[in-house]
């Protein structure tokens, strides 16, 4: 526990915990809605946003936020068929990466930041970053709590939800915006390349071994906490990068849940 004497370690743990909570809860709905690939694409788009921010004189974080929220708006308005389409998302995702590379070519000052956006850096979280993360997370979770009931229903039974007069487009747009904010935030810590991991793995693992919504959410968050905390701990012991351990533990928890699912049947 000597580790906890260092401020940067404490900050890493705080940041990791916030991210795990947020990504876990949002991820549960991402998996229910089968929108994992859209979440992944938002990560790559946020890289382009960070790289392009310098061109228009914005902070990288704001650039990321702006571009992901705009993309989320687009995906939401274009409807489910768009953001569940592997082809459309794959092509947009590749284009976003391409734009990111171009922006870095045109404006090199943020190259280091852009690298951080790709791979994250949990060990350099400042108090200010921590505060803004907390703020954005609370906002995202509040917004999610507000739409949770119709969102759950739309995710499970879109046709029935539509028949009850719920606007699928409105709900999915709001959800995509919440997802965009979360992805931008999670990417500060684990990087866009691993956003997918925390967003999808804990929820997918939890859904394999739970049968109700709240038990699913609780187990998702517990998985996410465990993955992040042990990831940080193992990184310190082994001196290997945190993203490696986080992705490795995510994979293990998912494989474990598959085994659990087998045994439960």
């Amino acid at each position, binding site marked *: 526990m000597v580790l906890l004497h260092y401020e940067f370690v404490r900050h890493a743990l705080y940041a990791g915990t916030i991210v795990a909570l947020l990504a876990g809860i949002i991820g549960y709905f991402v998996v229910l809605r089968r929108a994992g690939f859209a979440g992944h694409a938002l990560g790559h788009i946020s890289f382009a946003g960070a790289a392009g921010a310098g061109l228009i004189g914005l902070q990288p974080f704001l650039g990321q936020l702006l571009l992901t929220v705009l993309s989320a708006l687009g995906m939401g308005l274009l409807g489910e068929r768009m953001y569940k389409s592997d082809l459309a998302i794959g092509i947009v995702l590749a284009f976003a990466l391409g734009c990111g590379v171009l922006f870095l070519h045109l404006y090199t000052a943020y190259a280091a930041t852009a690298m951080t956006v790709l791979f994250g850096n949990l060990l350099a979280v400042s108090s200010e970053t921590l505060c803004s993360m907390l703020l954005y997370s609370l906002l995202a979770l509040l917004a999610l*709590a507000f739409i949770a*009931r119709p969102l*759950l*229903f739309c995710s499970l*039974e879109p046709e*029935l939800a539509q028949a*009850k*007069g719920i606007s699928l487009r409105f709900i999915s747009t709001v959800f995509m915006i919440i997802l965009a904010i979360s992805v931008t935030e999670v990417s500060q810590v684990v990087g866009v390349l691993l956003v997918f991991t925390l967003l999808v793995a804990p929820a997918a693992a939890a859904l394999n071994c739970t*049968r*109700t919504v709240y038990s699913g959410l609780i187990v998702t968050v517990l998985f996410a906490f465990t993955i992040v905390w042990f990831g940080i701990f193992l990184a310190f012991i082994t001196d290997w990068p945190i993203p490696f351990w986080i992705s490795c533990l995510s994979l293990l928890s998912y494989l474990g849940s598959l085994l659990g699912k087998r045994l439960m049947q």
Partner: protein
Amino acid sequence: MTTHIEFNDLSLGYRNHTVLHNCNAQIAHGEFITILGENASGKTTLLRAILGTLPPTSGSITVFKRTPSRTTARHIGYMPQAQPWLDTHYLHGEAWLHANVCSFRWGLPRITQQAQDECEHLIHLVQAQDFIRKPLYTLSGGQRQRLLLAQALLGNPNLLLLDEPFMHLDPGFQTYMITLLHTIRKAKPLTVLLSSHDINPLLKITDRVLYLASGETSIGSVASVFTSENLSKLYKTAMMVIRHGDYVFITPRIIQ
């Protein structure tokens, strides 16, 4: 008897493709209407128009004397045509049914004791108690249909739209479901529109039939709709109605 649903020169379609043409009908509160027709004859399209998710291309439709909207939709129990549940449907049946309760309200999913009791009651009514705790993706087609029926009955609707409810059902449960609908309707006046491929299981319970073919509609008693002349006109080809005891069958007239 008050009119529950009214079609006035109603035409329905998608983009350049007309599915139903100039349909006129009045359906009274408490009537049981069987909607008959082949695949793609417009049965589901018509139900969607009643729900308000598909606006008419021309003419008008009223439900409870109003244009179909969010408000009318909430008083309608709808059982859609069964789609297979994907292997991502991990929740069990009860959690799924709870998610259906007042799903249009904002906020966190919550369920009152009263709603919980209602779900409990419906689960027994559709005889789903044996598999209600199993994850959805492991359920058979018939089990899925029972849960969809339970969901349609939630909130005590006064109009039920059932889209091909007998698909995937074994004959035993088909009979049970018809008896169940009969019992529910005896307790309170409930308008039912049920789409089916076959009128025979419903002969005892249905008040009138609405027959859809080649974009045209014909509504009336079984005896008046099921005549060779009427159906030939509807299908625009020679049709023959064969009666056997109480049962009716139709076939294109091929043998001269």
